[in-house]
């Protein structure tokens, strides 16, 4: 099952857990599934059906610009990180 690493500011919605295994084939599905079990986490990370501005998703260490639509594999690690600007 994919593992979602819960960003520190969202951990209070998941009883302080740092990572949670959850079903889903996209980041969106993972977070929706998390929300059913842990209400409040969706609104902490997302707004208007997208990640909040300033946040980005990384799957297996790679930052993605696909946001919630990014596909995940069964063994994937998913991180929600600050968006990065380059030079």
């Amino acid at each position, binding site marked *: 099952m994919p593992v979602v690493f819960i960003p520190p500011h969202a951990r209070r919605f998941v009883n302080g857990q740092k990572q949670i295994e959850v079903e889903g084939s996209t980041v969106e599905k993972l977070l929706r599934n998390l929300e059913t079990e842990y209400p409040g986490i969706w609104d902490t990370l997302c707004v208007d059906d997208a990640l909040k501005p300033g946040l980005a998703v990384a799957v297996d260490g790679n930052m993605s610009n696909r946001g919630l639509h990014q596909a995940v594999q069964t063994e994937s690690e998913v991180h929600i990180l600050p968006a990065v600007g*380059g030079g």
Partner: protein
Amino acid sequence: MATAESDKTGLSSKGKYKVIGTRPIRPDGVDKVTGRARYGADIRLSGMLHGAILRSPYAHARIKSIDTSKAEQLEGVYAVITHKDFPDASDKIAELGEGSVNLKHLSSNVLADDKVLYKGHAVAAVAAETTHLAYEALDLIEVEYEPLTPVLDVRKAMQDDAPILHENQRMEDMSPDATTSDKPTNIYKKFFFEQGDPDAAFEKAHIVVEREFTTATVHQGYIEPHAATAVWSAEGKVTLYTCTQGTFTVRQQVAELLGLPLSYVKVIPTEIGGGFGGKIRVYIDPVAVALARKSGRPVKVVMDRASVFEATGPTPGSWIRMKLGVDAQGKIVAGDTEIAFESGAYPVSPIGAGCMCVFSCYDIPDGRIIGYDVCVNKPHSAAYRAPGSTQVAFATESVVDEICEKLGMDPIEFRLKNASVEGTRRVDGVAYPRIGLVETIEAIRDSEHYQTPLAGPNRGRGVASGYWMNAGLKSSVTATVNGDGKVSLVEGSTDIGGSRASIAMQFAETLGIPMEDVVPAVVDTDSVGYTDVTGGSRVTYATGWAAYEAALDVQRQLCDRAAEFWEVDSSEVTYDKEDAAVKGPDGKSFGFVELAEKVTQASEPVVGRGVSNHNEPGGAFGTHAVDVEVDPETGKVKILRYTAAQDVGTAIHPSYVEGQVQGGVVQGIGWALNEEYFYDEAGVMRNASYLDYRVPTCYDLPMIDPILVEVPNPGHPYGVRGVGEVPIAPPPAAIANAIYQAVGVRMRHLPMSPPHVLHEILKKEG
């Protein structure tokens, strides 16, 4: 110069490719050495007016009124604009591919709304027949200000009683014990990352070192000032010539700020005279467009050098507290850091990246990172080559050096013991794919430089490593096969450092044709598919990948055409890139040139297309060694020798890869030794010129020796990793460590300019 190859992967580029790894002359070279290449300020259109911008003399003030009537009446003036000429911007965040921007902030930065937030903040603009006249008109604009107290230092700006830049700003707290407050603050956001239990781990550490560091605001220092020329058509369409790292990004920002349909804005890239992250956000482009709209004439706006310093995005000054603990064997057991970046007049700064880079080079099982993004009365900070990484590398690598000294351990041995490898989990949680940090450390250890003892008084050697994550993002190219067997390659990545060559080479490699037979063109936003900025070290990786896809598309189309000519099924036809030929059954064969000619005469055109949006750019690491000599009587630091080892994935065009490393190192040396924004108490930058903003000259430097370590990126067809950014990160720390070896003082402030170094020497001598 040396090229070390990785013997661990067996995937070195040498001998594997026909075109990749060679050093052809760049396609745009002749235009650039003969003065024919057109840069931003070189655009001249008939009927063109010249724009000029009125800027705030105050670092912090409320605008009470602006009277432009006298300027409007001056003979030869065609338009005067202020913030009121822009539609109300929403508080929406626009993603610019690399980084994002709040449109309301962007709009207020381009022309100030109710407040000016830094000296040089644009307030109004004029279009007139000549530049001289436009500047005369600026003197006739009357602005009434109510000056406010400025705050210029990140720590002061974080205090409770600090002057507030944005009354409606409340801190967004990303820490687990986040609380909300309704108090106005200059802190835009507090970042928090934690892995393991650092507090417990420090308890068990054998040695703990905790230090504070500060770094001054510095600028990218590109030699070409920003320049934009806008043409407004009666039907409401805009053509904009501009020197930018990203035409599509400019298109988006201009359209949003002026309320225009995206597709009505056509951005034509000129050549670009350097950017380094500073030519992504717009400053003058919307002004040129608004002036063109109001005057009905084409308008060119060119920034002067002082405005480039005072009013474009430098990279943040910072304060950093850095604490590391090691066990008796020299293994890092815990890390804890607090990082505060000056975002300038508006959020956001590259603090997020700084947090991700700060412990990136080491395996730190228990660590905590806290970051603050803080507004101060300086221009809104922007990206600068590996944004955020240099500041934090200075802190981390300096403390690592101090720990090595306390342990009595060689800094190379320490790094090899603690270096991040594939699978190492960073404190922000991400685990690395295959990376080449260890190989760069070994390359330095084995280098002739490191193996040669350094002799002489007041001399010292320092080592430091650095990291940048690199970016993937979106790119598009099209490739038209011409009747003469050459290919027109159309791309959207503006070429700052030879990317026409590195993209064309990957295309040529894929088809097995000579690079010289590929004619690249960097075109406008109407003429190529969406392409993200030339930044994030992504162009050779991502646009190169798009070119690879386009070449595969060309292969497929050529095979189909050949199949038609031969009247066979296309499954029986293959493309042989070794011979640059299409091969069919019964020994049938068309050479590339032959088929190109035949297709052009008697078949549908062959137009290949390639897009990419891959996200495995392969982070890049570098390890540097530097020898310095310090004049103990003046504190002046001389760079005697510099070697930079970097994991470059695959070096497509080694000369330009070396050039990226050398250029990044020298920018890092400038940051280390002399570059800084020097403000007076009123918030006026006292050194807004190349005279006193001291970028290194040729006479200040030795040759810079790059060692290209090639650990191919498994996430790219040719193993490309971004190379441009990471080399700026290690130099300040490496030099600080060398200064300590030379004269025994630990420098914890950048720049390590002579007055600072001498001060420490005198303090030490008592």
